[in-house]
């Protein structure tokens, strides 16, 4: 139905009074403007961004543990799962497979999550201090389902990857990846709904719990 396309674009052009003589130049100008995006008004938090990230995450109903090194992650996960009686099995992103999970008494499989998995462990691309938000990219090693299907999502957040705001996160993404992956997911706390009598309930379709392990060192 390219007929529909021509029809719609024709109607839009007609209504806007588009002059065919200048359209090419205008298109070029707009395309060029994409290369130097402007940031709008934003609070731009400064100072201890990690602390702000933690505070904002708590206000979005995430829970937080702070660790010195990545090696402490398995023990921290084991502690959290034991405290909540959440079992001892999980799936994780392959990038976290090398950690000593068995040593912490956990059975962790490095694969994408299915509908049966109850705990998913991920890393992050970065984290956003302004709103307490995780930024996750889909990819061969970073399944999108791991942070979505399980009832509990645990994310390892390196303190060095906490940035001020979404604009900074996009700048980082452009610098490190160039183009966007299939899915960029911004996650701010557990899933929720307020549809029944505007009463907020945690755990609608996604996780009931989001637990963050902020790692200050390597």
């Amino acid at each position: 139905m390219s007929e529909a396309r021509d029809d719609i674009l024709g109607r839009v052009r007609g209504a806007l009074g588009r002059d065919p003589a200048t359209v090419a130049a205008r298109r070029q100008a707009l395309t060029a403007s994409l290369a130097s995006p402007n940031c709008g008004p934003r609070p731009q938090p400064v100072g201890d961004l990690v602390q702000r990230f933690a505070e904002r995450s708590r206000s979005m109903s995430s829970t937080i543990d702070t660790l010195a090194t990545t090696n402490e992650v398995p023990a921290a996960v084991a502690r959290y799962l034991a405290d909540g009686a959440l079992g001892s099995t999980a799936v994780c992103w392959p990038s976290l497979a090398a950690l000593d999970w068995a040593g912490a008494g956990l059975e962790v499989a490095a694969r994408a999550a299915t509908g049966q998995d109850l705990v998913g462990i991920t890393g992050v691309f970065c984290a956003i201090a302004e709103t307490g938000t995780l930024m996750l990219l889909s990819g061969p090693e970073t399944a999108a389902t791991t942070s979505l299907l399980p009832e509990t999502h645990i994310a390892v957040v390196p303190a060095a990857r906490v940035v001020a705001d979404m604009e900074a996160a996009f700048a980082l993404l452009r610098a490190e990846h160039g183009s966007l992956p299939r899915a960029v997911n911004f996650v701010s706390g557990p899933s929720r709904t307020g549809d029944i009598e505007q009463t907020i309930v945690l755990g609608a379709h996604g996780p009931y719990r989001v637990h963050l392990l902020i790692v200050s060192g390597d």
Partner: protein
Amino acid sequence: MRQQSMHFAARVGDRLADVKLQANLKKAKGKFVDMRAAAVREFDADAAACAAAAGRDDAVTFAALRDAGAAIRSKVIDDLDLWLEIFEAKAKASGATVLWARNGEEVCAHTIEIARRHGISKAIKSKSMLSEEADLNAALSAAGVQPVETDLGEYILQIAGNEPPSHIIAPVIHKTLDEVADLFAREHGKPRKTDIPALTREAREALRAHFLSAGMGISGGNFLIAETGGVALVTNEGNGRMVTTLPNVHVVITGIEKILPTLEDLATLLRLLPRSATGQTISNYVSLLTGTKGAADPDGPEHLYFILVDNGRSSLLEDDFRAMLRCIRCGACMNHCPVYQTIGGHAYGWVYPGPMGSVLTPLFTGIERALDLPQASTLCNQCGSVCPVKIPLPQLLRTLRERQVTRQLRPRSERFGLKVWAWLAQRPALYARAASYFARYLGWLAGGEDRIRVFALAPQWTAGRDLPAPQGKTFRERWAAERGR
């Protein structure tokens, strides 16, 4: 969705008499208003604190954010044809297919054709108002594709016998917990529960099976990003992520006006949308979906389709109504509207209720098919003052009223009355005398009471309220007396 907006007056009467609905509306009233106000205050305080910490004296404000949001949306609308072409080229380059639909029928035809091509028998849907415009669910069912609504509110409406939503972001705001409990007990065949978390878990379990088995996901789109050729989806429940991650085919159905140029523009609009809609700082999930699953990716759809829909939108590009195309569908205007708060969303009789609906319905479906909607406003500008993209809603409603008059669509009695009034108003002496007689006539009608309960000249006006009786002399008479003293 079958249009009922021409029967507005009758529907309002029904809604006002509906005790249960009135109780629900009373309960919800003010919640969204308070939450938005708190979120705006918090943004301003936070921005001021951030500026102070950095030693800057140029703290941003929510007001400045609204200006920026309006400017971004206007920039897109003013060059909409070119932004559409840029978006289309980027989307295609990322591996998506871009289709165009002039109207609802073409939306249905495209979607059914996609379902046939991929052998789909079940489609999971995240909330899309455009699919309501197109009546997509009925068309899918008729074509042998089972549509499953997955937003909790939309799911409740679907199992309630395909009821229409009454709010664009809180679709079941008109239903009580008891009604939902009854519905779930009947639909799920499980013991009746009245605990909201337990009901939510029951829906989660019922829908999880659908998420894992459907071949096609259908979503709306909060924004299309020209820079990347992708779509941004904002949800709280996570159903939007499910619908766009699990099935092998993803169909995005959006209006042609939903474009934003860059990711930075998205960041700005995302500071406005959740605060204006639900008073949240940010929604739980914001997903940017661009292109299809890579060869080594463990999840994601292999096929991504965009259906870009006009369905009346291009007709809003004329100067008088162009501002309406800035709308980002947050619902703040209806949350703050005293008329919406009193009659609920169903009374408006089409997809979009409240002030934005009273502008969109006549423009999308024909001015003569929604004559009462532009009148159903006190023009108090509560809506305009909270709109995140500063759409002058009262002004648009007034322009629609003018159109009705110039197209001679107002009732003959009203036109005659206005003509008489205009004739009198141009003759001050006569006007003063007529006003004085009329005031005395009304006083006589009131018969000593302070109100008139039935006014024979306009019986409809006193059907729902009393007419206050005039307090004796007219203003001019009293003024003349004061001056003569």
